[in-house]
């Protein structure tokens, strides 16, 4: 299981600053950041520490078991969009 960022995301990147395992991409120093629609959590790297959810200024990050059903699609999108990014 892993935390999930949903579409409300504003790319504030406070989550990136606090993630202890560099699971959130694109980071501001990665080339894709400027044009990223939103940020994503790599489910392979996430350790469920909750730091990102606490740091997010707008509550756009959900614990794996708290993701509202209508936002379920974002679980797959987070995985899809971080695939191939080295953790």
């Amino acid at each position, binding site marked *: 299981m892993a935390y999930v960022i949903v579409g409300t995301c504003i790319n504030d*990147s406070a989550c990136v600053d606090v993630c202890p395992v560099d699971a959130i991409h694109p980071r501001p120093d990665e080339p894709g950041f400027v044009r990223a629609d939103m940020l994503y959590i790599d489910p392979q790297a996430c350790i469920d520490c909750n730091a990102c959810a606490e740091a997010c200024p707008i509550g756009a990050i959900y614990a794996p078991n708290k993701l509202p059903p209508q936002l379920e699609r974002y679980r797959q*999108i987070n995985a899809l969009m971080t695939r191939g990014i080295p953790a």
Partner: protein
Amino acid sequence: MNPALRVAVIGAGPSGLYAAVDLLKRHPEARVDVFDRLPVPGGLVRSGVSPDHALRRAVIAVCERLALGSGRFRYFGNMTLGEQFQVQDLREHYHAMLFASGAGSDRRLGIPGEDLRGSHPATAFVGWYNCHPDHAGQRFDLSAERAVVVGNGNVALDVARMLLLPVDELRHTDMADHALDVLAESRVREVVILGRRGPAQAAFTAPELLELATLQGVDIAVEGALPERVADAGQALRLQLLRELQQRPSSGAARRLVLRFLSSPEAILGSDRVEALRIARNRLVEGADGEPRAEATGETENLETGLVFRSVGYRAEPLPGLPFDPQRAVLPNAEGRVLDPERGHAPLPGCYVAGWLKRGPSGVIGTNKICSRETVTALLADASAGRLGAAPQAGTELPALLQRGREVLVDYDGWKRIDRQEQARGAPQGRPRARLASVAEMLLTANG
């Protein structure tokens, strides 16, 4: 005691507030005064973000808390550069000034009929439903059955959603009362969104598209073929979502949204008001930079409509007393240091820029955080290297420049009175707030 660094930030939208917070965090003695031309801060987070996305507005409260926690932050609202104060006044009070007043105007289409009744900038419509004092008094006639939005960025999708959502789904939001009333009477049943280039080059983001898919009572038509070849993962996701929308069977809903691509507006037609839009059909060709570019095929079509919104980008206006690059509509700058074209593009000492005024209107709210951070890095480096220019003569007391605007100044306490009043007005209806629609009302509340 003279603090080490006093900075004026002009503009209390996301880029200005992000810059203020970053300055206060990274320089333990910096004092930051944030100015805004409106009584209330927030910029486009308050008046651009759509009412059904109000969760995003929380970023302003977070910045406020961080800035306030420093004890070195002041807010001066309803203060307009060039009216109540000039750049020269700022020089007398501050070691540095950081301009972050954004891009307040919209880009025009430059086609015949653009000023016919029924043709509007999307920014005016957005400002209207979000109760921006500049637009709250405007009138929108929504008696046409079809509306066309030119441009397909997130603003275009917001406009379409506001026109198509059942008004009852908006009654619990902070949408302006006058907009709720007009939307309740709206006869708009179809919104056509036009993109100049193809689906792969569309400007909307994946989350906005996903949201369209969840709209109740709205059928979505994605016209034309969708390309298989993609440039990156983001594009692949957007195309995948478009494909899913395209394959969804029509439900026969009363309202319809059409995403049309490879279409440029050529003329808005009508005698005294908008009656139709002439659309030129495009094809994609590779531009000199390798990017796909739209080229007219010569084919045209007239689309009947009573309402046209142009949503082809924001544009910054020059600021009095500062250089301006009219081509890019930004303050000429390097990493946020304002450059003076009249002195060989040397940095203008003590002058900085962030946000859309620095890089043009692109990105989402948080993109400005990184942009502002870059500018603050330059400012702090210049401060420690002694490159800010002559130190200000005046002290830290309420700047003399504010004495002149004293009757209209809205300080932090005044803003909080407006904030509380708006929330109290909204509470009985279960809304986050019901906004004050004019500067006069805001001033009354701020002084009350």
